[in-house]
């Protein structure tokens, strides 16, 4: 009899403590004003991510930290892999490759600064909800014309029902010549830092400097 009571009690305890049903609860979508909020400045966020440490070092070396962190701007962040491929193209001879980023010659650093400025859109917050499939144009800090639009994929054969992504294109031809845009897909969009908007670029096909 005692055994039976013990067994029932044991099973009872199992019932009570065994199954939490918390995992059934779905928090739903995060409210749009909280989703993607970083709570830190653009630079601080990039510094905290290992896939951007080359980028942040270059920003520091070119003295563009303030421009990246300025209020109400948009920054499109190329990943380290894109920059790695840029250096592969720039220093084809492994003998002449600088050992550290600090060792890059001054004239190359100036070029890098000029390139970096084209990833900064001053005084404008570009977010996905405001973009359309048609093109809209802005000017980068480097003075080039940049173009934004939305591309929507197909889903299981249903036209225009798949994932939406931002396409960022830059006019790469010199001033006065016909415009030639090179486009990159934004991989992670609409991150909101304390100073502005941050988009992370797809590094598979994009090489730093629009090569």
């Amino acid at each position, binding site marked *: 009899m005692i055994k039976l009571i013990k067994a029932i009690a044991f099973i009872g305890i199992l019932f009570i403590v065994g199954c939490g049903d918390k995992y059934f609860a779905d928090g739903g979508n995060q409210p749009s004003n909280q989703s993607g909020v970083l709570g830190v400045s653009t630079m601080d966020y990039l510094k905290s991510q290992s896939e951007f440490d080359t980028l942040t070092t270059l920003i520091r070396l070119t003295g563009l930290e303030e421009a990246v962190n300025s209020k109400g701007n948009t920054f499109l962040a190329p990943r380290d892999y894109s920059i790695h491929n840029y250096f592969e193209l720039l220093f084809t001879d492994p003998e002449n490759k600088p050992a550290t980023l600090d060792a890059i010659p001054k004239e190359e650093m100036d070029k890098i600064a000029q390139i970096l400025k084209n990833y900064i859109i001053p005084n404008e917050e570009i977010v996905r909800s405001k973009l359309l499939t048609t093109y809209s144009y802005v000017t980068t800090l480097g003075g080039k014309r940049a173009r934004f639009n939305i*591309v929507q994929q197909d889903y299981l054969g249903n036209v225009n029902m798949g994932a939406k992504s931002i396409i960022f294109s830059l006019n790469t031809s010199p001033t006065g010549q016909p415009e030639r845009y090179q486009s990159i897909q934004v991989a992670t969009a609409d991150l909101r830092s304390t100073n502005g908007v941050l988009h992370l670029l797809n590094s*598979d096909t*994009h090489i730093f400097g629009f*090569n």
Partner: protein
Amino acid sequence: MKNKIITMCLIILTLTGTSCKRWLDELPINTVTEDQAWQTGSDAEGAVAAAFAIFRRGLSGLTKDDTPSTTRNGSWGDYYFWGDARSGDWITPNNDGDWAAGFQNHLIQRTQLEPMTNWRLFYRAIEQCNLILEKIPEINNGLTQERKLQLLAEARFLRAMSHFYAARIWGDIPINLKARNVEAIGREPINTVMQMVISEVDQAIPNLPWQNKGSRKESMSRGTKGAALALKAHACMWLKDYQGASNAIKEIMDANIFKLVTMDGLRTLFDTGESEEVIFEMYYDVKKGEYSDYYGHIMTYYLTNPYTSRGDLSLAVPKSKILEIYPDYARDKSDKRVAAFFQSIDFSVSSSELRPVFPDPLQNGERAIMFAKFRKVKDRTYNLMDAPVPIFRYADVLLLKAEADARLNRISDALENLNKVRERAGIPLFTRDDQPVVIDEILAERRRELIGEFHRVYDLVRVGRLHEFNPYITAQGEKDGAGFFPVSQEAFANNPRMEQTYYWQFNQ
């Protein structure tokens, strides 16, 4: 009651007794047995056609039907992996691990790549040819003597072709000239294989026609004198018999069957294969239900929207490499082949629409230029891709003759043929006449002209220079056989005489 039971039993007995004919024991009429198969002329025709079909499947690779252990659906275009991937010219813009492993010569440890090391289908084609050569001589019903000799010559040619193609991939390979082998056969040195190829081709040539019946692509997808001579020339080059190669190609040129088409004519050459430049190819035909599915044609991997429904590039030649390969284009945009072989697509347009093609072929960035040598009309379907698999064409043999002549120090003959190809491409004629420079230039011209046509790696392995272009292969590694594919595990089963390539015994 008793009567009823008896009647029931009787009915059941009659039913079981009469209703079942013993059809399970009968042979279905569509089963073909050995002694029925080789009787009439149409059996012979079918057997030869089947041999070519097996060879074509051998080129595109083992599929799930062939090896249940592979995870691959459909063929993977293995000819690309064998002949192009390791040339150092290619990248995978979407960072696909299997492609990258192929580029880097890591051919064993990835299970997805293992089937590519299997030569089974080449030997299946060879066995079919052996059977034909054994059985057709006895057939007289519905087969003229002339046609019989031609079919036998075709089988002999294809047997040599399969050995040759396999030898370029695996180096030393078994030579199999019997329909049934009871004893295990081991690998023969590549030079012995090439000598066998040449002697077989020499036997076949007298009975082969210059052209077969049917349209150009049908004609050139079977055995012809041109294909056999081109095969002989290639085999001679491997044996460093430059005079032999030069003579064989001279015969092709003198026949006046083939010519260099115009730049615009290259589209037909690569899209449909109905071209006077084709010497030997393996065609597919949509109308006969032959086309790629998702994984089918290697060529679907080069293309994206607007040619297929792929959104991203899977295989490409990077822009810096294109400028390096085509220095004339880099200097003054004169090389017309860049615009004919490469395209830039406007990737900022939604993938639900047909994306426009930029007028400048190299407008896109380093990793985003499409290799569009093989393409089709814009319709965004994966399948219905039926471009032929190229094997030999006239520009290829012209350049091969140029190389042979240059190595024999007949520089003016070499330059004449080299310049025919350069002239079509719209680049300046080559005039320097010191032998090593000319040989180098011819090799570079072959790279420019035949990019993506499964020649580059074989050319480099033949001259022992693969390690100069592929950073993952060392000079010593190449001497040990890194330029060849490893032999599949399957070839070792029940064959004590089989040996792995030296390099692959130590490198996985």
